[in-house]
Every structure is written in structure tokens, then in C-alpha cells.
């Protein structure tokens, strides 16, 4: 935060006056951050380590070699006592108020700090998740289109088989059709020939019947009544004779 003030004043100092450029060059060895802006340097994961919420850990490490663990605390206590005893800092009503609001701030930070940090982290997680989701969706879309393309290529390979099968199908249909037609033709021809045969048979039968009728008629008409009486008398005599023989046979 205060580094922003430094940056603002430093950038104005660079261009100003005769000593500006000299200062820039002379202080080059004191600069600690990277001097280029690309690639963007990553933000640190954790904030600076602090002790008791305000004092940076580096201060304690700075004093550790000379004064040990209790050094900074002794420094703080001594400073406070000096300020109070020399009346550089006077205890007045503002001190009471400072203690009150200090207590309230500490209480709020302790109570709501973790919740606040969780909320902030959740915002970050959501942002990251959105970006990840966009990336994942585009990756999956591309993978699906790759799969579809591969399938199309496989289909193209099978095209020859498909055409052969189709060709076979068509040939079979043609064959079937031709056989059906032959069958039909054969049947038709047979029908016509059968008709002719039936016609001839009819003719012959009619001729036969006509002849038989004519013969019968002429025979019947040729029989005279005299002949008829003679044949009937002969038949009766034969029958009597037969009757006598059968009677004899039956008696024997």
C-alpha cells in the first residue's frame, strides 16, 4: 500500500531535474522486484507473515541475532514507557477510545476473519471453475468432433462393401424378376395349348357320341316287329328251360 506512494513519487522523480536519472541508476542495486512486466509475475499464495496481526515477521528475524527472542518485545515495552514517561504521548480520553475501538476491531477480525476469507476464496474458486468449465467444454466439443470425424473415415472405408452388397441385391432382383416372367410365359403358353387339346377332345367325343347315337338309332329302327316277337318267344323258352334245370339242381 505504501509502496504505491513510493512508486508514484519514484516515477515522477525519474523524469524530473538533473538528479533524477542519476538517482535511478545509483539505486539500481537496491531494487528487489523483477524489473520487467512480462511475463506477469505471479501473486504470492499467502500474504506476508505477521505476528500479533500487525508486526511483520521480518522485524523479529532482523532483531533475533542481536537480541534474541524477547528483543522486539523489550523494544516495544521500552518505547512505550519512554513515550509515556517523557509525556510525548499523553494519556487522555482518546486513549480510552483507542482501546475501545481497538478491542472492537480485534474482536471483529477474530470472529469474522475466517468467514470473510472463506467468502473471498469462494469467489476465486467460482471464477476459476467458470474458466475451467469453459476450457473443459471446448475440449470436450473438440474431442467429440474428432470422434465423429474418425467414424466418418471408417464409414468411408466400408463404402465399397456397401456398394457390392447393393449390386448383389440388384442382380438378385433382376434374376427374380426374369424367372417370374419366364414362369408366367410358360403358364400362358400351357394354358393356350390346353385349350386347344380340350377343344380337340370335345370334338372327338361329340363325334363319338353322335356316331353311337346314329348306330343305335339305325339298329333300333332296323328291328322289325316279327323279329321282335320271335326273339321274345325264344327268350321265354330259354327261361323255362333254365328254370327247369335250376329246379332240378335245387331238388338234387
Amino acid at each position, binding site marked *: 500500500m505504501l509502496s504505491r506512494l513510493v512508486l508514484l513519487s519514484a516515477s515522477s522523480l525519474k523524469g524530473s531535474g538533473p538528479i533524477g536519472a542519476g538517482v535511478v541508476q545509483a539505486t539500481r542495486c537496491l531494487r528487489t522486484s523483477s524489473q520487467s512486466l512480462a511475463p506477469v509475475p505471479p501473486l504470492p499464495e499467502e500474504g506476508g507473515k505477521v505476528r500479533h496481526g500487525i508486526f511483520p515477521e521480518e522485524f523479529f528475524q532482523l532483531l533475533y541475532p542481536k537480541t534474541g527472542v524477547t528483543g522486539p518485545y523489550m523494544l516495544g515495552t521500552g518505547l512505550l514507557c519512554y513515550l509515556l514517561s517523557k509525556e510525548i504521548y499523553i494519556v487522555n480520553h482518546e*486513549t480510552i477510545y483507542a482501546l475501545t*475501538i481497538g478491542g472492537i476491531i480485534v474482536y471483529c477480525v477474530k470472529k469474522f476473519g475466517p468467514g470473510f476469507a472463506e467468502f*473471498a476464496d469462494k469467489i476465486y474458486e467460482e471464477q476459476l471453475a467458470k474458466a475451467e468449465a469453459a476450457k473443459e467444454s471446448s475440449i470436450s466439443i473438440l474431442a467429440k468432433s474428432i470422434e465423429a470425424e474418425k467414424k466418418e473415415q471408417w464409414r468411408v472405408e466400408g463404402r465399397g462393401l456397401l456398394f457390392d452388397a447393393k449390386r448383389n441385391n440388384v442382380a438378385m432382383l433382376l434374376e427374380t424378376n426374369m424367372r417370374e416372367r419366364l414362369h408366367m410365359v410358360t403358364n400362358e403358353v400351357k394354358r393356350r395349348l390346353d385349350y386347344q387339346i380340350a377343344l380337340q377332345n370335345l370334338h372327338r367325343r361329340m363325334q363319338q357320341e353322335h356316331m353311337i347315337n346314329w348306330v343305335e338309332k339305325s339298329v333300333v329302327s332296323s328291328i322289325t316287329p316279327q323279329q321282335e316277337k320271335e326273339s321274345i318267344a325264344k327268350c321265354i323258352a330259354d327261361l323255362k328251360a333254365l328254370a327247369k334245370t335250376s329246379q332240378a339242381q335245387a331238388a338234387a
Partner: protein
Amino acid sequence: MTVTLFDQFLSPTLFKMPLIAIALVSPWLLHHVVTTRFSSERLLSVKKVSVSALTKHIFQPLGPLGHKWALMFVSLFMFLITLNVLGLLPYTFTPTTQLSLTFSLALPLWLATVLIGFRLDPTRALAHMLPQGTPPLLIPVLIIIETISVMIRPLALAVRLMANLTAGHLLIHLISTGVFLLTSMMPMTAILALALLGLLTLLEIAVAVIQAYVFVLLLSLYLLENV
């Protein structure tokens, strides 16, 4: 470094050099610079979310003409809330306790809303002087009353903010003086007064945030009437 009751309201000076410019500008150092990073650290991401939520809340009723004021209002809100909340720390100077600051913020903005209203649709802007459905007998009186109420708005905005903060700070100082003096004489009363001071401080934190919000909300309402 004796601090009287009125020292907190003096414009800060260092060897007779006025420091008011630093007092007004240095709170901005506490706000993050807008970065082009994809994701920022915790405070900045929460600030982004809360500022966008506030913007949506204030500017939803306003139309597209009102959205031009978004930057103005949101930066005004951030300015006021930072000044107010920082002023709650001990030994700090709160610029918003000076009527000069609050009035110089309220008057131009209110006047801008009124002038925009008269420029865009003078009939409708004048019609605001008379609410709907007033009985005819009251019309002359009501016109005068409504005009006065419109004219008093900038003063009301300025004094509301200034008086709330000044009163709060004064009360805090008085009660903490009381606690300070009572600790030697009547410790139990001092403890009660300390409890009161704690509650008052909580109230003052709330007031600091709410007054900034109310200032900006009222200005957006005046804009809504006129835009």
C-alpha cells in the same frame, strides 16, 4: 498534545501548512489499483463483488440515461465510506465533518439533477411540484411547500451527513472523556460508561456506512425523478 473537544474538527495543519489535500487524497492509497490480472487477492475480489452488487442495486430503477452517472455515484460512495470509516480511528481527522466538503459535494450534484430534469422534460419536472390527487384547495400551499422542499434538498443532504458524523464523534469524545475522568473517582460508573462507549462505537461504525449510502441513494432518487 492535549486534545480538546474541538481539535478533532479543525482542518489539519502542519506548522501552519494546510494538510487537507493529503487528508482527502491519502485514503485512496488504501484502495487497490485496478489490475488486469485474471483473479486477484481476497480483499480486491470481495470489493469487486460488493461494488458491482451496490451498482446494480442503485442503478436498477434508473434508465439508460441514469446509467451515465454510475461512475460518479459509486466513486462518491467509496470516497464517503472510506473517509467516514477511517475517521473512526483515534486521532484521525474526518473531512466529512466539515460542512464545506459535504455542501460542495451535495449542491452541484443536486443542481445537476434538477437542471437535467428541466432540460429533458420541463413539464414533468415542474409537475413534481404537485403530487397527484391533491384537493384543489391545497394546491397553492402545496406548490410553495414542494418548491421549498426541493430547494432545501442540497442543504439537507449536506447537513445530514455532516451532523450525523459530527454528533457521533462529539458523543464519542464526550463519553470517553467521562470514562477517563471517572476511572479515578467512581470506577463502577466508569465501567458502565465504557460499556456505553463500546455500544456507541458500534453505532458509529454503522452510521458511518449508512450515511454514505444514504447520501448516494438520495442523489440517485433525485436523479430518478428527473432523468
